[in-house]
């Protein structure tokens, strides 16, 4: 029954968008994090989405083919800003601290995108559910 697949596919998308929303929350929470070295400084994290194209990519027997998965997380490549702040306990020998490279505006846009995509897939599930119920009603005809 094709409707089972719709629920599975939209479910994988809900999952992936939730990971995206979570990483946005984490990035925003760490927006003002400071560090002593550029390597240790916080870098914004983003999920990489990948389409589930075959059975091998999902659990055996699960109706997820055609859905989406998070294949990994990547760091934002933007440079970490270096600020002279000798009074900061995190300051290095020269008195510099490294700020996170989180851009709040980008994160807000990501958040809205993730929320809209999530809502979209919820609507897909609702429509499929309504159609499934209508199909059951065929016995009353």
């Amino acid at each position, binding site marked *: 029954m094709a409707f089972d697949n719709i629920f599975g*596919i*939209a479910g994988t*998308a809900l999952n992936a968008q939730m990971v995206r929303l979570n990483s946005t929350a984490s990035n925003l929470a760490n927006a003002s994090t400071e560090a002593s070295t550029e390597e240790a400084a916080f870098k914004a994290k983003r999920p990489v989405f990948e*389409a589930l194209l075959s059975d091998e990519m999902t659990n055996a027997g699960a109706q997820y083919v*055609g*859905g989406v998965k998070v294949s990994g997380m990547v760091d934002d490549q933007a440079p970490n800003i270096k600020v002279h702040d000798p009074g900061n306990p995190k300051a290095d020998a020269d008195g510099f601290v490294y700020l996170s490279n989180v851009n709040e505006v980008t994160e807000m846009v990501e958040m809205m995108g993730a929320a809209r*995509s999530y809502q979209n897939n919820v609507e897909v599930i609702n429509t499929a559910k309504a*159609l499934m119920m209508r*199909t059951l009603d065929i016995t009353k*005809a």
Partner: protein
Amino acid sequence: MKIFDSALGIHEKALGLRSQRLEVIAKNIANADTPHFKAQDVDFKAALDSVETSRNLSTTDSKHFDIPDMGTGRNLVYSVPFGNSLDGNTVELNVEQAKYGKAAAQYQATLRFLESDISGIRKALKGE
């Protein structure tokens, strides 16, 4: 059952195809943010033609089950996007939403046809 096959006509096959088309569009919507994903759609006319003309896998014993072949797998086409995107994804969410809504309405229309066929059969059986 032979009698019901002819009574329900094309709508029975159309219902299966329509639900599979909904699935294909759901896949597109799920992958709206996946880089390099190419949106697909069902070539409905070709799929319906192949369901009508092709024989199902033949069964050699009366105890074998019929294997339904909806034919959508062979009749998938790639959608041509209105604009290009930077990440190579060709899903246009608004277009897919509209398609999904329309496909859901078409599914209900096919259901309505089936319902009236079934109530017709039921009336005939009762002999009212």
